[in-house]
């Protein structure tokens, strides 16, 4: 699918300074691994017999189904996948007037571009060439970001287990596929509501079914493009919204959306030092200038005080000299006068 890296305008405030408009818009076409497998889920054929749930539990060695499959009360509540049941069948439309009810099977959709793999900090998920998205518990640190990110609420976590909790999800029976078999649920389904095959083949078949029965199907294969396309695809006669399948906000793959901001990170790492040192230098110079101005002002002030000190000193010396002269004259005159009196007597 064509991917235009979502143009992320103005990452962090720092990056805003670097005016990074859309980060490198890479337009790359990723078709995914050729010949990968998928499954087509035709909800107009599903009769809600839940044989797929039973088969899935047997294949994966999980505890058996809580409610037996002939107990219809299980459909009164809408269930979700849990750590012990990797797939559940829900009734979404309950017709009274004899029309068959509408059921849908929930499980991990094995996206072409898995967001669970994208958000895992330990790279514990891997999109295999055969199609399934595999989980490696030996790498997982249990942050549960994948459980938070999945738009299909498909992942579950072993909260009870204190020491070795794992993320539990459908693996599309990877081992069976490697042996050339079909996933447990596909084999178990009596109505052929789950067809296993190459994904491209299934898309062709789905379009063919829609063409052949225009009144039975909505002309849309859910999963062909939603969030970049999924391995599990759904055909339905009722609007997908009623089947809790929000038709997906965008066909842009979630990895592109999730990592669109991360393009800014290397920018921040590389541009900040220069900028901040510049800022630091600026503030240092600003300080230096301020300090030097202060010193000049001080020096000027000091110089000014010295001058008027000198001037005062000079004036004082001047006055002192004149007083001295006057005193000398007075003394001389007094001496002369005494000399005349001496002469007369």
């Amino acid at each position: 699918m064509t991917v235009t890296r979502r143009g992320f305008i103005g990452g962090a405030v720092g990056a805003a300074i670097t005016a990074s408009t859309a980060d490198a818009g890479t337009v790359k076409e990723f078709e995914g691994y050729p010949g990968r497998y998928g499954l087509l889920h035709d909800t107009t054929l599903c009769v809600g017999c839940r044989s797929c749930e039973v088969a899935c539990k047997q294949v994966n060695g999980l505890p058996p189904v809580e409610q037996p499959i002939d107990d219809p009360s299980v459909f009164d509540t809408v269930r979700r996948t849990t750590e012990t049941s990797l797939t559940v069948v829900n009734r979404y439309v309950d017709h009274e007037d004899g029309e068959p009810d509408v059921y849908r099977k929930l499980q991990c959709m094995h996206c072409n571009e898995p967001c669970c793999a994208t958000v895992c900090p330990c790279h514990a998920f891997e999109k295999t060439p055969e199609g399934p998205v595999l989980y490696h518990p030996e790498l997982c640190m249990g942050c549960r970001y994948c459980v938070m990110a999945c738009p299909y609420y498909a992942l579950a976590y072993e909260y009870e287990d204190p020491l070795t909790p794992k993320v539990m999800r459908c693996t599309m029976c990877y081992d069976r596929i490697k042996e050339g078999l079909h996933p447990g649920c596909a084999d178990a389904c009596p109505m052929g509501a789950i067809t296993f095959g190459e994904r491209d083949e299934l898309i062709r078949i789905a379009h063919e079914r829609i063409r052949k029965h225009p009144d039975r199907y909505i002309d849309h294969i859910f999963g062909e493009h939603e969030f970049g396309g999924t391995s599990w695809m759904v055909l339905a006669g009722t609007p997908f919204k009623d089947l809790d399948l929000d038709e997906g906000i965008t066909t842009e793959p979630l990895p592109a959306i999730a990592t669109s901001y991360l393009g800014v990170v290397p920018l921040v790492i590389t541009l900040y030092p220069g900028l901040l040192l510049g800022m630091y230098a600026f503030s240092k110079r600003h300080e230096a200038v301020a300090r030097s101005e202060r010193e000049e002002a001080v020096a000027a002030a000091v110089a000014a005080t010295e001058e008027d000190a000198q001037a005062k000193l000079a004036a004082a010396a001047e006055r002192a000299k004149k007083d001295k002269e006057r005193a000398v004259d007075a003394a001389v005159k007094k001496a002369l006068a005494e000399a005349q009196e001496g002469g007369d007597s």
Partner: protein
Amino acid sequence: MSHRTVLNSLLGLLVIAASAVPAIASRPVPVRLVDPAVVEIDWPAAAGEPQRPVVEFNHGLHAETLKNDGCATCHRIDDDGFHPSFKAAAGIDRREPLMDAYHDGCTSCHLRRAGEGLKSGPVTCGECHVKHDPGVSLRVAPVVDLSLHARHVKAFPDDCGRCHHVLDKATDTLVYRKNTEEACRGCHKAVAVEDSPSLRDAVHRECVGCHLERAERAEDTGPFRCVGCHDEAELAAVKRLDEIPRLDRGQSDRAWVKGLVAGVSMVPFDHKLHEGASSTCSSCHHDRMRSCADCHTLQPGSDGGDVNLQQAHHEHGSMLSCVGCHQVAAGRDDCAGCHRDTTVAVGGVDSCAVCHRGPKRQLGDVPPVPEEEPAPVALDELPAASDDLPEEVTIDLLSDTYEASKMPHMKIIRRLDGGIRNSVLASRFHGSLDAMCSGCHHHSPVGQRPSGCVSCHGNDNAPTDDRPSLKVAYHRQCVACHQRLGLKTGCTDCHPAKEGTS
């Protein structure tokens, strides 16, 4: 504005916002359903732009409260009969006089009754001109089907002129002409035309007027309140005759559907049989009581709009075409198993000869071809059970979690065959037995002993041509058919579970 007021206003806003928090999930607004007896008082376009919202007038309520005053309080009833529109406003289409007519008519009556302490209605403008959000009316259009028509004929033997009339242009009067009766819809359209009132006015004048007259004379009559004809439940409660005498309008029992192309074999159409099979004449004569070829020609742009003659006869989706109607008929009750879904085509290429079995069509003035007696339906008898036609088939090829399934083969065949025999349409089209067998043994050559499912369906889904695996083939064929027929579809209904499996 001192900062004191700024702070107070902000705190006030905060409190308001917080108070709205519990309404976090906004619920969708339910659609307003309007009672069938509520009528919108129409405002003719000539009277100009309405300044206030249209008034929803509850006619049922008024009819109930004024039932002893009689309908004459609002409707003019004179020797030409019952006039459906409000008598004070009839024929007025200028703004002021129309407003006065309604205001004097309604508010004066309400004021008077209020004065006398009787139950009364609104008086001020705002109470009547209320701005409603759009509602969906529960009103249902009544259909005079053959049963109801027959009851009227029984009530007024050979007095067809009472309802059916033709406008004699010369004398500009309504006269009755035998064998020209039609549905009112033929001439009276939704909007009144210069010489024919609107369908609504015409029908209310004729039917409600007559019912009212007979009610006044305390004779047994039909409904004259809105709900009588327009409410779904009331309509369902209308008495139906169990066998309906044939309606004679001078139509022939059989006719040739000749078409317009030379060389195509004509279709012997059993008109009499089809009258019995459809609810009204309008099922096929949906516009005028004329043959299809009069409007639907082969040239585009004919009266038949963009539907040419071929489509008029063969259009799958339409209830008015032959093949369309047959398809719907085949989709019901016993036939639904095969025919509801389009896995088994109706009106497929191989069934053309069933209808087109008359002589070739010749254009130009050619002596009319005599009507033929329809060939009797040659449906051969159901053979008894034999090894070719086993009474019961045990399907055990795949049983592992469930026991083998014992499929009651003949029981199914007898039921389907019974359904076919008592339907003329089915027995005419099915002809031989093999047509029924190819319902399940599809894609297998008709006539021989059909091969088992396993010969084509392998043990896993072959995605190349979307061919299901054997297990899926069994279930899809049986469970889907049972679903459509409303039969049991539980797992253990067909095959008991083996001990020890969940």
